[in-house]
């Protein structure tokens, strides 16, 4: 595992921002780190980047973040949520300044991505729009061909075309270079397009960590209508059922694992009609987080 968090805790005064966060990120994966506003996403990302002090164990490339992190950052591209580049520099000067921190800078890649995002490299940063600033921040993050790319809410402020370009580039980065991407966002449609793994954080706790395909296989919506009256309790007792809604003899069932088994059990109850439907990441998110009051 290239990133490994074990019981990481972080308090801001008396407020517990992270309440023992544990998850891991395999090498070469695109991990979507999702959660509501204030769930602890940015705190987790900043902890990963060595910007926060914490309790527990946070390891990147097998080394504890607290110890000797300067060397580790050589292989990390980071795009923060809030824009943090020098406004008095031109884009070109900023890229050159950033390049002095790293051994290698891919100038062809910079030129190529600048064209894709229609970024004028001679323009001063203070005169760029919000979306273009984000694009520059992203170009700087990927220009060093990092092993790990850590992105915190990267798409906020970007127009739909820039967003599509961004997602396309991310997939290419992972596919061609084997870059591990840790992508924090609350825009789930975008995460779903590229992520192969999901970590869901809510109120400082990780509620879900799994492969996206596995989540989609386990989380299903089943609608079933019975000829005879069936107790809601009977359905809720079936292993793998997360939630049930009753409407006369009809039921809406949300599964959290093993939907085939649930379907088999329901068929034994002689339903008049039964259907199973896929859920998208947004629906799964609502089911998990919505249940947490």
């Amino acid at each position, binding site marked *: 595992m290239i990133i490994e968090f074990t019981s990481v805790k972080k308090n801001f005064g008396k407020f517990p921002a992270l309440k023992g966060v544990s998850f891991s990120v395999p090498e070469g994966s695109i991990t979507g780190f999702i959660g509501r506003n204030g769930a602890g996403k940015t705190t987790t990302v*900043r902890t990963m980047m*060595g*910007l926060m002090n914490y309790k527990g164990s946070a390891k990147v490339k097998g080394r504890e973040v607290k110890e000797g992190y*300067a060397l580790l950052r050589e292989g990390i591209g980071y795009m*923060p949520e809030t824009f943090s580049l020098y*406004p008095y520099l031109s884009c070109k000067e900023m890229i050159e*300044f950033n390049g*002095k*921190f790293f051994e290698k800078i891919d100038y062809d890649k910079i030129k190529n991505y600048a064209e894709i995002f229609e970024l004028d490299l001679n323009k001063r940063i203070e005169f760029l729009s919000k979306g273009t600033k984000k694009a520059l921040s992203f170009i700087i993050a990927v220009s060093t061909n990092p092993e790990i790319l850590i992105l915190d809410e990267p798409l906020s402020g970007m127009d739909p075309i820039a967003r599509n370009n961004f997602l396309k580039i991310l997939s290419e980065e992972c596919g061609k270079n084997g870059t591990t991407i840790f992508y924090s966002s609350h825009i789930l449609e975008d995460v779903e397009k590229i992520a192969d793994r999901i970590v869901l954080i809510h109120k400082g706790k990780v509620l879900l960590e799994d492969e996206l395909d596995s989540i989609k296989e386990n989380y299903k919506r089943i609608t079933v209508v019975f000829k005879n009256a069936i107790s809601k309790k009977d359905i809720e007792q079936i292993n793998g059922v997360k939630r049930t809604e009753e409407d006369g003899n009809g039921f809406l069932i949300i599964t959290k694992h093993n939907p085939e088994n649930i379907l088999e059990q329901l068929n034994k109850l002689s339903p008049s009609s039964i259907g199973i439907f896929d859920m998208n990441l947004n629906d799964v998110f609502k089911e998990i987080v919505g249940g947490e009051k």
Partner: protein
Amino acid sequence: MMLILKELKEHKWTIIIGILITVLYSFAMVLSKTKSIVSYVEGTITRNPNLTFSQLSQIEKSSELMIDFSKTFFNSVFLNSFFVVLIISIVLAVALVSYEEKNNTFEYLFTRPVSYARILASKFISGIVAIALIVIAPVILYPAEMKFIAKTLIPRFAVSYSVSSGVEPAKVMAFITKNIKAFPVSLSALFCSSVPYILGFSIIFALALLGGILFRKRNSFLKVSIVIIVCVIWSIFWAYAFGTPDANGKFATGFINLPINSTLRKFGFNTLFLNPNYYNLNHIPLLPTIFGILVLTGLFFLSHFVIVHRDKI
């Protein structure tokens, strides 16, 4: 190096304004003093037309013709260049932190593959370089003071070139040409004599920088107020503890009997040694320099400790 250049570029206007203020302040101070000295000397000579050469020399001595670097920076007048540079040092330190805070650029800097010590060191070094420029600029840029630079290695009571040449650039240039051989040597002497001043202001700067790091999340006004109060109080204590020049140009010992005073006296030293004005201007005063370097090093490690053990943003 690139981080130091970045800091200097970022704060070039603070440095330029700092240099302008001290240069103009020193100009005004030295010019006003020169005028009064000229009238004093002229009046004395007019009243006593039969003075001998040695008597004239005595008049020059007693009339405080030594319009020198130390007087520009540390005299008995409360509001002198010392306090001007003190405030500039504080503003510079606070600006070094506030600018990054305002633009969220600490997040950028602290996530680059560079140690926190290097980031902090770049801020320390750029601050000290800026202070050195601000301290030396008024002496170098004041035309009549070129005479001081060139004449440092000869007796300091020599007839002030300020008196005879005023601030006429042509005369000053002629003087420099004539004394060109002495110029580089004297320039190095000037540097040596300014080391304790640079260190003194650097300590104030480092204290303010530490204050800025500690109170990073507070608003700028509060930060500036706190560090100014702390540094001004500290600097007054410094003057009182380590001695100030008296009306006769000699140095009075400090009024406060700090533990270090008695300890140093046991070894035959007086804390007066810690006042840079105690020394001749043509060598680096060892004790205040060592003292300054030690304090600066301590402040650097303290600031580093604060950065490492607190959230970076």
